[in-house]
């Protein structure tokens, strides 16, 4: 009896493994338009499910109906979402398979399209999520291409912005950590590392020096560790500005010594920025910051 049960379990495990392998072998696809899964090729019958742009589809079979090619697909559910798996038939022209000619460009183009739509005042409501999913698919289907790397970063960035807009605190770091792990030493990893700093920032400073001091340190460390990052100049500016604010806070509290030390440190950081990044917009913001500090114009709060 025990042996039979063991055999049964073993058989189940083998079948499960075989299914997983088959799934791994199957081709993936993604819709570039919202589509409805039908119970059979041709689209007749009650719809099975509605599938959003950018969902990960597993192709199970292909068939032609009414002069059109149809795909039987399983729309996979992304972990951590409310999506549910569903299987049905979709017109092949709306679901771009990984083997389709120019598939990476077509999906990437659809993602850019959704991103632009998201910026319009009356754009499609689902556009930001659509863009995020579509970029995610490009990264998943074509990880070793330039489009794939760019898409991995863009998907993580959109996810970050969406989480922030939805008030998530702290913001989930998984996607950004993924960028750093998969694309080490690239500008994308630098950008992801910069985004992650947001989770370390204080909320309201409440007029205390501790918060800007901690944040200035975080930004300065970033600028030192990522000197070629597109965000290095911004990080140095943030460090300089916060250090200047600390000088104001100490000055108001009549702590002349610490105020002067912070003032000089802020000037040095701003000067370093102006010298090191002569082409960046941040250089001019640094020049303005230097001018304000030299004239003792308060940086924090009002001028009086």
């Amino acid at each position, binding site marked *: 009896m025990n042996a039979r049960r063991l055999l049964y379990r073993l058989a189940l495990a083998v079948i499960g493994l075989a299914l997983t392998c088959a799934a791994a072998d199957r081709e993936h696809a993604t819709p570039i338009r919202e589509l409805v899964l039908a119970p059979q090729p041709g689209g007749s019958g009650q719809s099975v499910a509605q599938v959003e742009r950018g969902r990960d589809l597993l192709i199970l079979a292909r068939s032609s109906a009414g002069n059109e090619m149809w795909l039987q697909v399983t729309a996979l559910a992304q972990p951590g979402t409310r999506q549910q798996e569903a299987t049905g038939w979709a017109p092949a022209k709306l679901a*771009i398979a990984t083997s389709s000619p120019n598939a990476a460009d*077509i999906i990437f183009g659809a993602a850019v399209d959704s991103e632009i739509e998201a910026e319009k005042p009356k754009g499609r409501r689902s556009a930001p999520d659509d863009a995020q999913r579509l970029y995610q698919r490009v990264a998943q289907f074509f990880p070793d291409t330039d489009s794939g790397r760019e898409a991995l970063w863009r998907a993580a960035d959109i996810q970050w912005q969406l989480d922030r807009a939805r008030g998530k605190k702290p913001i989930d770091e998984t996607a950004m950590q993924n960028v750093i792990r998969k694309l080490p030493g690239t500008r994308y990893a630098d950008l992801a590392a910069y985004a992650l700093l947001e989770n370390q920032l204080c909320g309201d400073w409440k007029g205390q020096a501790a918060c800007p001091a901690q944040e200035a340190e975080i930004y300065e460390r970033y600028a030192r560790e990522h000197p070629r990052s597109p965000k290095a100049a911004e990080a140095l500016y943030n460090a300089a500005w916060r250090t200047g604010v600390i000088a104001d806070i100490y000055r108001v509290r009549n702590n002349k010594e610490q105020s002067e030390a912070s003032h000089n440190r802020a000037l040095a950081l701003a000067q370093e920025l102006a010298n090191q990044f002569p082409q960046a*917009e941040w250089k001019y913001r640094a020049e303005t910051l230097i001018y304000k500090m030299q004239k003792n*114009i308060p940086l924090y709060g009002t001028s009086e």
Partner: protein
Amino acid sequence: MALKQKAAILGAACLVLLLSAVPGHAAEKEHGTVIGDADIYVAPDFKAQRVGRATRGRDIFLIERSKIDNKDWAHVLATIQEGLLQPREISGWVDGRLVVTVSTPNADQIIYGEAVDSEHQQELRGGRQKADQDAMRLYYRLYEYFPGSPLAAESLWRAADLRWQLEKSGVFSRPSAREMDANSRSQIDDETMRELIKKFPGTRWAQLGAYDLLDNKICGDWKGEAKCPEKESDMYEHYAHEYPQSPKAPEALYNAAWRQAVLVDMYAKERGKADKARKKSLDIIQELTTKYTESDWRARGVQLRYLLEQNLPVYGQ
């Protein structure tokens, strides 16, 4: 009596001289602006009566500078506008530290930095109100005071574009914006944009300005009629060919191709016209994808070609 007459004549002459000297004197004063909102007081004292506020980027005349109780003060003549009231000229004293004039060392860079700062403020959630208008004025002041600065052309472009976007959002939010004909709605004031194109011809800034100007020519609601996408497609294609180096050239080509693709949908019952529009769209996409290989617009072009090849609708999607 004669002595009294002489004294009166002398007094009148002095008064005339004094009065005639005032405008000349003002004209010699330094132009400048403020890099922070500056309250204007009747006297150099923060407790004195406040007569107004000069916001960032307002054009001011510096009459004199003074140091009182170790504080810098500037006596200025400023044109200010508060709320919906008419602009008025007032003179008074402001915090001298905030006044940057044409003779301030690195003034162009300082004004530019403050303008960039204001633009960033506008983008921040909870950022300073009307910071975009501060940025617009500051950029314009830079160009006005330092037309030879390496930052002048970009500053005029940024000032013109900020003004354009502000006016555009107003014009396109009115009911007249839903009319098909562009002439049925009020036009976006193009004065600053024209100034940019005239002063800095052939630069990328002038090319960007020329692209913005197209907004005044596009239709409102197409109302399903083909003449609008036809006209707009021509307009965008013309732009892309006239300014092939413009950062907006690939976008213009995409817009032209997309409108031709829309015409394919609109001419669904007129096969000849639909085929012509499809061919035109595909030709433009070909130009876009081969000429601008590094741009996001290339990928959008590839996607559009796919939609056309698969006979998928473009209009209303």
